[in-house]
Structure formats: C-alpha cells, structure tokens
C-alpha cells in the first residue's frame, strides 16, 4: 500500500485523464518540459500538506489538508486564454464528480486559480494553475491508511 497522498494524487491524474481538450496528456509530477506533442496538457503535483491533531491520546486522528497544484499548459496562436478557461472548466467538472477521491478523502475544493503567459516562442504559451485542497483523515503512525 502506498501513502494516502500518493493515492490521492493518482486519483487526481486518473480523474483528469481523457478530458475533451487534453485527452491522454495528463501527467503525474512531470519534471520534463512540455513539447508540442503533449499540448495542451495537464500536470498534477502535490505541493504541500498540513496536519492537525484534534484528539489527545495516541494514536491520534490526523486531519490532513493536502494542497495539489493542477497546471494547464496551452500553446496556440489565439484564444489561448479561452482554451485555458475551457480546460479549467473541464477540470472543475471532473473533480466534482467524486469529491471523496475514490473514498480516500472527506472533501475536495478548488481554492484558487492564476495564470502566466509568454510569447518568446513560435506561438504564445499560457499556463493556468489551479490549487486544489483535498481534506482527508489518517491515523497517526499509519500514513498508508
């Protein structure tokens, strides 16, 4: 069994694979550059996690808040902003279909979105970044659930 965080990230990737505009171009913690054949594409990262201890006696229950970053990569001559928005809409709809991430979590919330652009290459490029919080419970000393 793997860490609950790993399984949640894998669930996110599975959920976001096969969307209308990105198809199979959805990657788990991609570290290599995005080239034309994988665009438009989505990359999923788990970037931060915090724990709270609501009970006193070990083994304590942990309330975990996992922050996942879902990045949308688009390169096209025009309407790149509309494409990022459309893919973001696809992502939000897909995430909403199961807020428990396959029973691993209590809730999934998209809490922020921001973008960046560049036009130094052969076509404009744009990145949309969605920050997604996944709330789940774990027991102290049992990170694999």
């Amino acid at each position, binding site marked *: 069994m793997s860490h609950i965080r790993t399984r949640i990230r894998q669930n996110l990737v599975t959920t976001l694979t096969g969307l209308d505009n990105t198809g199979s171009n959805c990657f788990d913690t*991609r570290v290599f*550059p*995005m080239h*034309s054949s994988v665009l438009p594409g989505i990359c999923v990262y788990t970037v931060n996690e915090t724990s709270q201890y609501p009970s006193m006696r070990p083994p304590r229950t942990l309330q975990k808040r996992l922050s996942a970053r879902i990045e949308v990569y688009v390169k096209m*001559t025009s309407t790149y902003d509309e494409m990022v928005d459309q893919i973001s809409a696809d992502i939000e709809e897909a995430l909403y279909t199961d807020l428990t991430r396959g029973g691993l979590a209590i809730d999934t919330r998209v809490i922020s979105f921001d973008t960046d652009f560049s036009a130094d290459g052969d076509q404009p490029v744009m990145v949309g970044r969605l920050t997604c919080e996944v709330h789940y419970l774990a027991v102290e000393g049992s990170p694999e659930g």
Partner: protein
Amino acid sequence: MAVETLDDRTLLLADFGVSCTGTTSGNATVTFTAIYDAQHALEEAGGFVAFSLDQPRLTCVTSQVSALAEGDTVTVPVNSVNTDYTIRVVMPDGTGITELALEKQ
C-alpha cells in the same frame, strides 16, 4: 566604426538568405532576402516545467522590410516548404539590420 558594416552583412544575407514574401495589412507585397533561424528554447511561463519550443526569427536588411509591421504576414521557405508566419516583433538593431520575431500560423 562597427566591426561589421552593413555591406558585410548584406553579403552574408546574399549567401545564406532565402527569399521571403511579406504582405502588409494593406495587401501590398514585399519581397526580401532574410536569414531564417529557429533556435530551440525552453520557455518558462510560470509553471513547474518549461515549454519546449522554437523561436523563429528572420534577419534582414532594414530598408527592405521598412514597409512591414507587427501583424503583417510573411511566407518563408523552411526546408523548401513555404510556411506562413505573422510578424510579432520588429527589432531594428540601429545599424541597418532588422530581426523579425515570428509567430507560426
């Protein structure tokens, strides 16, 4: 005195350049010789990973492309295939040579 003169660069353009056809917004046609280059680059755009892409550029004599501006189109023979671009940035170097940054269509 510059290390290279415009005459030196014009010779290079004649030797290594290709014939390009620009079209202005008013539909006027401009034919000029330019050196085409599409250097590969990794472009950061705010994500965890970069974009892997090309940076197509034309190096040409300023006086030959003075009628062209941002938004005009240009057809460039790339590996003997005519390829359409839109001019996105006009970059004169102040010594008679202009570099055009292109967007692939």
